C-alpha cells in the first residue's frame, strides 16, 4: 500500500500546475465573497478527480501489467484508490474549511457551524462522486469511461428533472421539509454515503478481479 501511495502522489505531482490553479480559483471565490460555497465545493470535488486520474497514468503504455507484478494484489490496488480519493477529498475539505474560516474572518463575518456542515456535505458529495466514478473508470478504461460518464450524467439530469417536476406537481415543500429534518437529513446522508462507498468498493473489487492484464 505504501509503495502505491507514494507512486500515486508522485503521479499527482505531474499535474501540480492544475492543482495550483484549482486552489487559486477556489481562493478567489472564497475571499472575493462572490460565492464562498462554490469556492469550497470546487476544490473538494475536483481534488479527488486528480487522485482518480492516476488510474489513467497506471494504464499508460500498458503499465498495469507491470504494476500487478509488484508486491500488490488487485484488492490492495482498489483499496488504495479509494483511500487516496477519500484522503484527497478530506484534505481539500479541511483546507477549504480553513480558507472559509479565514475569508469570513477577513470579511468581518462569523464562521458559523452551518459553514462547517456545508464542508462536510461537500466531502460527502466528493465521496459519492468517487464511488460512482472509480468502478466506471476501472471497468471501461480511460476512453470508454468518458462515454459512460456522459450517459450517467444524462441519466442524473433526467432523474433530477423528473424529481423537480414531481415535487412541483404534488406541491411538496422540499425546503421546509429539509429545514425541519436537518439533523436527521445529515445522518441519513452520511449513512447513505457510507453504504454507497462500500457498495462501490465491492463492485470495483469484482471488476479488478475479473480483469486480465
Amino acid at each position, binding site marked *: 500500500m505504501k*509503495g502505491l501511495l507514494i507512486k500515486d502522489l508522485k503521479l499527482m505531482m505531474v499535474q501540480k500546475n492544475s492543482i495550483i490553479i484549482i486552489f487559486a480559483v477556489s481562493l478567489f471565490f472564497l475571499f472575493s465573497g462572490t460565492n464562498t460555497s462554490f469556492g469550497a465545493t470546487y476544490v473538494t470535488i475536483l481534488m479527488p478527480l486528480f487522485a482518480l486520474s492516476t488510474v489513467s497514468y497506471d494504464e499508460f503504455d500498458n503499465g498495469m501489467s507491470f504494476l500487478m507484478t509488484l*508486491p500488490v494484489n488487485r484488492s490492495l490496488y482498489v483499496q488504495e484508490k479509494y483511500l487516496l480519493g477519500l484522503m484527497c477529498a478530506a484534505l481539500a475539505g479541511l483546507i477549504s474549511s480553513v480558507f472559509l474560516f479565514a475569508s469570513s474572518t477577513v470579511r468581518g463575518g462569523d464562521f458559523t457551524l452551518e459553514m462547517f456542515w456545508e464542508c462536510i456535505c461537500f466531502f460527502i458529495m466528493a465521496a459519492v462522486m468517487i464511488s460512482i466514478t472509480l468502478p466506471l473508470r476501472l471497468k471501461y478504461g480511460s476512453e470508454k469511461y468518458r462515454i459512460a460518464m456522459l450517459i450517467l450524467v444524462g441519466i442524473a439530469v433526467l432523474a433530477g428533472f423528473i424529481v423537480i417536476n414531481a415535487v412541483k406537481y404534488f406541491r411538496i415543500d422540499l425546503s421546509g421539509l429539509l429545514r425541519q429534518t436537518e439533523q436527521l437529513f445529515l445522518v441519513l446522508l452520511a449513512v447513505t454515503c457510507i453504504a454507497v462507498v462500500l457498495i462501490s468498493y465491492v463492485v470495483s473489487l469484482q471488476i479488478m478481479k475479473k480483469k486480465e492484464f
Partner: protein
Amino acid sequence: MTLSLEHVTKHYGTFELDCSLTLKKGQVTGLIGANGAGKSTTFKLILGLIRPDGGNIRVFGKDGGTLTPEEKEDIGVVLSDSGFSGYLKGKDLPPIMKGFYRNFDRDRYLSLCEKFNLPQEKSIKEFSTGMKAKLKVIAALSHGAKLLILDEPTAGLDVIARDELLDLLRDYMEKENGSILISSHISGDLEGLCDDLYLIDNGKIVLHEDTDVLLDDYAVLKVTAEQLKRLDGSYFMKKKKESFGYCCLTNRRQFYKENYPDLVMEKGTIDEVITLMVRGEAV
C-alpha cells in the same frame, strides 16, 4: 523447485497454450520461440496477470495465483511491453521501490543507474528504448529477489549494453544464488547464460534440452536428396527442404561424424534448432 508449470492451458480464439516447464533453484532456464509462440502468455500466467483455463502453476511451492504481496517481494520481473508509468521520473523510483520492497537497495540501484547513464531528472517516457530496458532490469535486480522472471530483457539494447546487462545477471546468479526464467529472441544471450532451454511453438513445448547438450550434440546435416536416401535417419529429429537438398536436425552429432565423415555438418546453434524444429517436417 522454484517454479513449475504442469499442463497449464490458456485459449485465445484458435490459439491454445499447453505448457509444462520447471525451474530449479540456482538455475537459469530459457524460453525460446518465434513471435506469437506463447512466451509472453506463459510469463503472464506465471505472474498471475491472466488466469489459466487449466493445469497447475506453482511458484515457491505455492499456487501462482495466490502469492501474497510479501511473497511477491521475492520476485523481480521484466516484461517486454510494460514497465513503470512513463510519467514518473528516474528520481521518483527509489522512494516508490522502497515503499514496495523491504530489501530495496537504494545505493545499488543508484550506482547501476549511474553506470548505465540513466538520467534521474527525465520522465521515463522520454527514455530511449534501450534506457527503458536497462531501467527495468536494474529495478528487478535491486531488491534481493530470489526469482527473476525476465521477458525479453535485452530487447532494444546495443551489443555492449546487452553484454553489460548479461554480466549483471551472471553476477546475480553468483552472489544471490537465485533462479532466472528468461526469454529472448537473441539466441546468443541465452547460449551464454542458460543452463537449459525450452522451445515453444504454437503454444506447445516442442523441445527441452540442456544448453550444453544442445550446443555439443545437436548438428545440422546438409545433404542432397541422394545422400538422404543412403543415410541412417534413425536420429533425425526434423528435416527441411532446401535448394541444394535437405537440412536435417540431429541430436547425435557424434554418430554421424563417425559414420559419415564426408557429410557437410554444422554444429547446432539455437537459431538453427528453432528454425528446423518449427519449420521442419517430421522424419
